[in-house]
């Protein structure tokens, strides 16, 4: 019994109308990595918010025992004092301050209110070294990648004496490489006897690092698996998460691929801010009718920049190159022209660039194709509601009505609203940039199904993803990008994880 650092007993948390947590028990051993896994809305984050004091003592029932003593946690400060640190999905760093300032924010190296900056940065450097981040501590946080910011968050947690580190979906917006670094860091910390609780969607990484895996579904802890004694295969975990066996994670499709729909020729793009920095080098590719074409690569390899520059030049400067549709050259200098030429682009940044969150479902669905439900510049409300309702039915968007504001929908349903918006413009080519990021297994399957339906109608889909398994599962053909160049093309059976990685690595070797 003494081995447990944390015991949460019969935790029940009610929200108006919902039981978010239902008598959940969670036992975490000293010095282990304990994974919490479950679909979106299953209650993982709520449980951690109870632990860290976001939901104070008294708003839930149950007991929290930390290092053998029952604790009353009323505020985040209380949990911090116990040595618990939580790193949320949305990072809590201040972009306009330096790394060093961020690490010691609210914990300044100060004497009588005067900050000692030398001490701050010396200590910060030591912490960065510990988390394996080679950055100057005077660099502003806004100038480093999300992956590195994640590391700064961990360094910040380590600047206090912590015993238990909670990470809420730390790798959701990281690429494979960055994710690996982070997971290795957790294993390092484990050696120093720091316990971690890892909330994640990504089964592979959980299986790789976790000692115990607790599966949460509908606010209840379904099971806890021991790495050494239980079956921790993906299938077994997924069965626990969704309550049934997902026989196939990708819907079946018989490819029916037609002629070339779009061709891009010698496409070059320069950075919009830094004049001489080329972002895309001489990219040439094509996509066929009825084809799902994948773009693989690491984050920052130029996939988003390439597709946004094609989509009405919404990214980049000094763009050169040609786009052909069915052999005829087209001009797509503005987003509107791109849409008129049948190109649609669904952004990776759902919340900040995909949706007008405070507007309702119907207004978001019709936004890009508003002319279609309008006559003489006046919106036909009946028609608009009908269109939106149809999409809700067809794409299975779970919302009380089309008048619901998008901010109130779950991420999976928000993504389906974005897809509806683009499908409504009647595209011939739909570019989907990370459409399944941060979405649970069930909604992912629905999005794959929608993609299959689109290509079955003879449309083309470009599928950008950082998760290789879904590219393998869905694509007819894959281009591999690295540092702004297309460095490989794989089709059919050639598409394997090894082949993709090989293409990336070989391009690096050439560059050296």
């Amino acid at each position: 019994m003494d081995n447990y650092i944390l015991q949460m007993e019969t935790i029940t948390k009610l929200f108006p109308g919902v039981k978010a947590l239902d008598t959940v028990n969670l036992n975490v051993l000293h010095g282990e990595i304990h994974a919490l896994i479950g679909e979106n809305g299953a209650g993982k984050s709520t449980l951690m918010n109870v632990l860290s004091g976001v939901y104070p003592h008294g708003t839930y029932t149950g007991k929290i025992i930390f290092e053998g003593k029952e604790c009353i946690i009323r505020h985040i400060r209380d949990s911090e004092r116990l040595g618990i640190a939580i790193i949320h999905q949305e990072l809590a760093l201040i972009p306009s301050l330096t790394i060093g300032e961020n690490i010691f924010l609210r914990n300044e190296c100060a004497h009588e209110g005067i900050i000692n900056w030398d001490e701050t940065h010396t200590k910060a450097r030591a912490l960065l070294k510990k988390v394996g981040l080679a950055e100057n501590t005077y660099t502003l946080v806004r100038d480093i990648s999300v992956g590195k910011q994640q590391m700064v968050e961990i360094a910040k947690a380590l600047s206090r004496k912590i015993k238990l580190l909670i990470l809420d979906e730390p790798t959701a917006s990281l690429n494979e490489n960055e994710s690996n670094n982070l997971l290795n860091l957790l294993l390092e910390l484990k050696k120093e006897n720091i316990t971690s609780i890892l909330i994640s969607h990504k089964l592979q990484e959980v299986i790789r690092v976790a000692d115990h895996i607790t599966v949460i579904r509908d606010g209840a802890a379904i099971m806890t698996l021991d790495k050494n004694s239980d079956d921790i295969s993906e299938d077994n975990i997924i069965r626990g998460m969704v309550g049934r066996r997902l026989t196939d994670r990708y819907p079946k499709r018989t490819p029916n691929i037609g002629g070339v729909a779009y061709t891009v020729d010698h496409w070059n793009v320069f950075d919009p801010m830094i004049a001489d920095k080329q972002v895309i080098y001489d990219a040439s590719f094509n996509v066929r009718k009825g084809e799902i074409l994948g773009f693989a690569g690491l984050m920052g390899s130029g996939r988003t920049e390439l597709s946004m520059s094609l989509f009405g030049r919404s990214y980049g400067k000094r763009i050169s190159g040609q786009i052909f549709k069915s052999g005829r050259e087209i001009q797509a200098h503005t987003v509107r022209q791109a849409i008129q030429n049948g190109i649609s682009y669904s952004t990776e940044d759902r919340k900040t660039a995909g949706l007008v969150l405070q507007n309702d479902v119907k207004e978001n669905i019709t936004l890009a194709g508003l002319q279609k439900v309008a006559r003489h510049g006046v919106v036909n409300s009946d028609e608009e509601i009908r269109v939106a309702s149809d999409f809700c039915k067809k794409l299975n968007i779970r919302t009380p009505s089309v008048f619901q504001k998008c901010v109130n929908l779950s991420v999976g349903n928000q993504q389906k609203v974005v897809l509806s918006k683009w499908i409504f413009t009647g595209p011939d080519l739909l570019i989907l940039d990370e459409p399944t990021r941060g979405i649970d297994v069930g909604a992912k399957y629905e999005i794959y199904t929608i993609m299959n339906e689109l290509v079955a109608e003879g449309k083309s889909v470009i599928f950008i993803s950082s998760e290789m398994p879904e590219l393998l599962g869905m694509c007819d053909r894959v281009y591999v990008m690295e540092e702004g160049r297309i460095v490989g093309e794989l089709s059919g059976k050639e598409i394997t994880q090894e082949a993709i990685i090989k293409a990336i690595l070989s391009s690096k070797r050439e560059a050296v």
Partner: protein
Amino acid sequence: MGTFINLVKNNIRQYTMVIALILAMVIFQIATNGVLLLPMNVTTLILQNAYVFILAVGMMVLLINGGNIDLSVGSIVAFVGAIMGVMMITHKMPLWIAIVVALAIGFLIGAWQAYWVAYVRVPGFIVTLAGQLIFRGLTNNILSGQSLAPFSRDMVAISAGFIPDFIRGNNQGINITAMVLGMLVTIVYIILQIRKRMYRRKYTEEMVPFQLFIVQIVIIAALIMVCAYWLASYEGIPIIFIIIAVLVAAYQYFTSKTVSGRYIYAMGGNEKAAQLSGINTNKVLFWCYVNMGVLAAVAAIVTTSRLDVASPLAGQNYELDAISASFIGGASMYGGAGTIVGAIIGALFMGVLNNGMSILGAGTDIQMLIKGLVLLLAVAFDIFSKSRAKAS
């Protein structure tokens, strides 16, 4: 009874400002011994606050489109008024030419400021702060610091005139035309509301409960009729009232029903998403500022007509009245929220406050104090009720 209380509780936020407005009217009606709602005073109230209504419409459009404000409208009012004065008084030009020129100048000033905001991306706050100085300076320059007066009678009639009683033919007793117009508006309102509810019902269960819907229709219909009766029992409908009503109806329709209106809301809600949806956001922003310039010219015509003088001091603090009215009426600093009707309710609220306190003999010092507090409390209450709605 319990269900009724629940009903009110669940829907009260929608009607907060309307309720506050009615409350303010009741309080002042009692405090002024019934002077506030005397037909003559209601007409005065509308005339006095005409500029707030007109400017608040333009300001609300800007606020919807991303929390933009225009600090220069007071100076534009003075500038356009000065030009009208020079044209009509110094050069004896006819009214219609002066009006056309006034509107054209409003358009040009709007376009000038819109260019800097939309295409050079200088923050609107800065551009219009500069505009405030520029146009105040130009006004003083044109008028050499002197006032020009008086204007011709047709100019004065814009604010002092009434729609003659076509039906009865003479202006004695109750103005029948006003009553008929009021009736027509009521009928159109009821038909529109029922139609809206009918088609909404086809697609959703969540809407205002039926009883409340009826209560709402009855109250508003009664308000329109009472208003019509009030105007009818004085001298009929003021011309200015028609101008304002047409503006409000047109802009409410424009913002809620047209493609361009939808783009304004979408851009205010999320500019990046709007851009990626094919909306030319620079163009939308440009026209919102142009629109404000034109409306400022309309306000200038009305104000100059009412004061019957082109003064270098005209229009001072008008921008603050319009901004206050918009925020009281539900605008958001971050854009994407608010309605034209909301702005009008906000403007009415300010108007009642102004007028009521004047009747009671409160000095401008006290009036400013109260208006400031009301603005602060109204927005604080809105934030409070929103965060409560989120928490529960």
